[in-house]
């Protein structure tokens, strides 16, 4: 097993690392290429919490100010609504169009109170507005309009190549922004037949784009503002070994305190470990279990219950005073939907509501103070490609601003060693690094240092 070590990181000049300045420099270069560059596309890789949304909003405002009609393509309605709200917050005067579907409740009701946001199901109604925003799925239905001069494609690594094919005729140039470490897009049927083709419809939009346009400038946001100093090195080493990033905050900037002392139980001990170290592993005895392992699910629920009961307070650079750790600042992440449903039911039994419980796919792009993760390989007899997928673990391990607590059965290390990757090698497909096997080992060996063994 090889880890990215200190030597792999490019040697920086002696000056101390100034995250703010580094981030600004990267952003300036991106905006320069976007506004004044000669290429049709610009690609920006953004690690978790590196200010991707801020960049999108800023680029949109600058393009609009330069008088270039702009379309923005996001992947989900929630992402679209979020962008509209952020734009309106920055510039309430800016005319923005929200293109939406004809389903019931197609957009966030909060948009109705924004005066400069026009909403319609038809692109023609929104013609002439500075910025028009919608999902890739809705844009695909827009036909017979004058192409936009510029587009911003958000979450481009989670967009499938065929979705880009459907909308690429709508714009002349585009800025593609996304996180290469998160979950790859997937198809519900086999697509091996096209593996290795540059335009494999099930590949990510960026893969296809760069295969056909390798000369496009690629940028990277170098600083994660979300991940604390305890998490950034691990996530960077395990999931971004060749494109490292740093945390924007130091060890002293973030603190998690609890008013109620530990009662000595497993959940309380792991909470204290995570509050101190940023990571905690609550290890249950080894056992093969069904996916909705009742003991593990209950353990997750108990950890959440104790997090709320112990009067947590989070200190960070965002506020002068500690902020109470409330239910809306906690999330539970799982690999499967039935696991999420089981955790929700277990939480309801303990009287906990309002805590977000979802799968890795749905937690993408979201941020919380503390996350509790049911390890994808916990209790499994086998390690399938789905459970090993690098992006899944990366999403689950990078949603938190303060601490991440992983609940897992013992024996995953042995499981990994028993199941080396056996996916068939496809000719012409670029091998992705790191592979899930290696990333899982890297994360586990780090978590092992913060282990609390517990027999419920």
């Amino acid at each position, binding site marked *: 097993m090889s880890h990215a070590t200190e030597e792999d990181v490019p040697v920086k000049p002696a000056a101390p690392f100034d995250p703010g300045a580094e981030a600004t420099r990267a952003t300036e270069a991106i905006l320069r290429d976007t506004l004044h560059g000669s290429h049709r596309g610009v690609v920006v890789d953004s690690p978790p919490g590196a200010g991707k949304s801020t960049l999108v909003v800023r680029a949109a405002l600058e393009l609009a100010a330069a008088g270039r009609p702009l379309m923005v393509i996001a992947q989900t309605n929630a992402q679209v609504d979020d962008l509209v709200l952020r734009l309106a917050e920055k510039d309430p005067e800016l005319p923005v169009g929200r293109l939406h579907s004809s389903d019931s409740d197609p957009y966030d009701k909060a948009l109705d109170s924004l005066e400069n946001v026009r909403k319609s199901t038809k692109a023609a109604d929104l013609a002439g507005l500075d910025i028009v925003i919608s999902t890739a799925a809705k844009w695909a239905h827009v036909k017979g309009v004058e192409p936009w001069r510029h587009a911003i494609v958000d979450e481009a690594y989670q967009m499938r190549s*065929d979705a880009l*094919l*459907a909308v*690429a005729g709508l714009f002349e140039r585009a800025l593609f922004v996304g996180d290469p470490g998160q979950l790859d897009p997937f*198809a519900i049927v086999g697509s091996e037949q096209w593996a290795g083709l540059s335009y*494999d419809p*099930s590949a990510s939009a960026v893969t296809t784009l760069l295969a*056909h*346009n390798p000369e496009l400038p690629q940028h990277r946001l170098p600083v994660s503002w979300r991940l604390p100093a305890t998490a950034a090195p691990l996530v960077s080493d395990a999931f971004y070994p060749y494109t490292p990033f740093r945390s924007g905050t130091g060890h002293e900037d973030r603190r998690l305190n609890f008013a109620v002392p530990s009662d000595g139980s497993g959940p309380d001990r792991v909470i204290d470990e995570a509050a101190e170290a940023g990571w905690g592993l609550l290890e249950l005895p080894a056992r093969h279990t069904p996916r909705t392992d009742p003991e593990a699910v209950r353990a997750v629920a108990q950890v959440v219950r104790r997090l709320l009961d112990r009067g947590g307070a989070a200190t960070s650079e965002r506020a002068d005073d500690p902020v109470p750790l409330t239910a809306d600042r906690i999330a539970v992440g799982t690999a499967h939907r039935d696991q999420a449903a089981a955790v929700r039911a277990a939480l309801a039994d303990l009287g906990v509501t309002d805590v977000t419980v979802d799968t890795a796919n749905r937690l993408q792009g979201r941020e919380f103070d503390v996350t509790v993760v049911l390890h994808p390989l916990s209790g499994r007899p086998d390690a399938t490609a789905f459970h090993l997928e690098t992006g899944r673990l990366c999403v689950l391990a990078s949603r938190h601003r303060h601490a991440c607590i992983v609940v897992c059965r013992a024996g995953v290390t042995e499981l990994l060693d028993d199941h080396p990757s056996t996916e068939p090698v496809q000719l012409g497909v670029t091998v992705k690094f790191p592979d899930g096997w290696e990333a899982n080992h890297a994360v586990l060996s780090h978590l092992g240092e913060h282990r609390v063994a517990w027999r419920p």
Partner: protein
Amino acid sequence: MSLIATLARLEAVESGVAQATATVRHRHLTERPLVFVPLITAGEAGAPLGALVGTERDAPRLLVVPQPRDRDLRFAFLAELADVVLPYIDAYADVVEAAERNETDPESGKRVKVEVELCADAPQLIVPSRAGIEFVRLLGRSMRFRRTAEQDPETPHPAPPRVPLLGRWLTHYGERARVPGSSLLLALTDVLPRHWATGQSSLEDQHLGALLAWIDPPEGESGAEAALRAELRRDARGQLVCPPAGPATDPAFDNTLLAPAIERYDRARTALAAAEDGVEADDRLGALTAAEREIRALVESVTRPTWDAVWRGLDLLRALPEGTHAADRWTRDRWSFTGHRDRVTAGEPPQPRRDDAVTAANKLATREREQARLEAQEALDDPLVMAGRRLAGEAFAGEVTDVVMAYSEGKRPSPRPLVTVRTEDRPHLGERAKVYRSSGGKPQAAEFVGYDGFEDSGGAAVVLRIVDKMGRGKEPEAGSVPEKGDLVCFTLFEHEQRGGAKLPDPEETPWTHGGPPGETTVPDADPVTEEDVL
């Protein structure tokens, strides 16, 4: 694997016989399918050794390549195969019915209905195993770009006249088999496990003999014993009693029987070529014919058990009544067949070696839609499949315990009745989740409002708001709203699939995908090199 499938396998292990996982047949079977049991030569991908093919279970046609490395003999095999398969296909191409199709009028750009032909039925190909489908694809790929002497008098190894056409049809069938729920080309080891769960792994289910042993074990024997026997039992000569369903052969057969027989054939052929006069040649021709006959007998001995097993499997499947929606899906297969028939008649070139970006994206979109459609239709057709979805929290069934009339807000209030369903299922209902039920064959949508308290027995009372299919009036149409005491089943998945957005034409492939693919020409066959021993 779903929970219900796991349970069915456990039950199969315990009871010693495969358990039904379907109450109806989810794939259409035609009255006269063409069964194809091919074999290939070990170590020579794409070199056929022989096949049994035909539509009559008692009279299969045996095709054999006595020396699989001989290009001429291989062409003879393919020509013979074309003689069996193409007349079978042609018989369906001419029987048509009138149908309507929506097309875009090139002048006005509007959608108009056009009268077109639709083949009344379609030819159906059955192979024993999934690997057989791969082999059909391989045959198709190896044949469709071949040139006949008529097409290209210069070609060094002209193919027999109908071989490229057979290649195009096999390619079409191989490609169609990738569409979920299609039945033009079926592998028995895919279809049988859809309807029965055995007590072995899905990998082991790919052995047709073992699979049938689990589903229909001989009198007085358990499925597990019979399956083990099917996999391992050998006769006095060390040969498997139940040979593999192919196209790969058993190494023991290759080494001890086939290889010596082919060697005898080669020697006889060399001897015949060296004959010095007519009498000698006559004798040696006799020896060659005998050697060939021996190989034919060998090939028949290892294909015939599979042939019989395929028909037995078809009998088992035919005993199940066909699912309602299987006929709908077969109609799509007929459209697919008719479409390819039209392309062949119109003189279009063979399918390209690789899909262009737009074609690939269209195929993927179609298949994903068909997959979702298949999953929904199988559940709607079959209470046992629906039970699996209910167990997975994707559907729930129960009795209507209360109906309260309510109306939507707005200028023209529409009926939005609140229906309470008492269920013992545990659906994963999120806030305001949409659910659907089948009402007179059409899906009716409702919205999850909340639980009317949990009950002790683990059941729940689910409150739903019905939102459509109640007519245009202020009062819902009679029978459009469930009534108290009705037994209903709601699903969390949609019953019908929306069509996706239209992709650009291939000539308008955008810059992100490499631009238009350019002129499509029929590529030349790969040049023959020194290494081409075949």
